[in-house]
């Protein structure tokens, strides 16, 4: 079955530290991949997406993600975290035979001063 896994439920980093949020997918073929961020009380905002081509994609707010086919992963990274990055992050995938996004369970990011 198609699935998206975010192994880390909760991560805490210090402000200014680097960040990597993990995402793995299970699909028959390479799906379209997305990262969304949800701030408290807000809807989901698209950070970045991967469809094809260059495996390192740049997004908004200084985020980037790297697609690794061999590992079925699409990890989100940021070199220096800001306090305003505290939020919940969702990885999602869209298979080519469906119009439905499959979401991971999310990773809640806390940022320490």
């Amino acid at each position: 079955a198609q699935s998206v896994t975010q192994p880390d439920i909760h991560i805490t980093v210090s402000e200014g530290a680097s960040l990597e949020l993990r995402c793995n997918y299970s699909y028959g073929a390479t799906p379209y991949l997305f990262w969304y961020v949800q701030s408290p009380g807000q809807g989901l905002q698209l950070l970045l997406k991967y469809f094809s081509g260059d495996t390192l994609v740049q997004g908004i707010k200084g985020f980037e993600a790297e697609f690794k086919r061999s590992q079925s992963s699409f990890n989100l990274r940021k070199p220096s975290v800001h306090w305003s990055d505290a939020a919940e992050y969702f990885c999602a995938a869209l298979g080519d035979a469906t119009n439905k996004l499959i979401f991971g369970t999310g990773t809640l990011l806390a940022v320490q001063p």
Partner: protein
Amino acid sequence: GAGVSQSPSNKVTEKGKDVELRCDPISGHTALYWYRQRLGQGLEFLIYFQGNSAPDKSGLPSDRFSAERTGESVSTLTIQRTQQEDSAVYLCASRTRETQYFGPGTRLLVL
């Protein structure tokens, strides 16, 4: 341009009452989705509209849930005889090509 809007932002209702949630998609987006997000969980697909095609209702959890969409505009999600387990954030998204854009959600609390 305007994003996806949803109303109301918050809704508190009593068990057994019906509720109606509204979604205004981005103009020109032919596809519209409803999701449910329970506390501490990811997003759960409910229903999908694409143009004039029959909606994909495969995610609706029970026959108490229904949704309608008028053409390529507003959609309403109706929950009849609400139960406490219906308490959640209900998110709407509209899509252009492969990318979905989400509204702020409606927070439903069933007492």
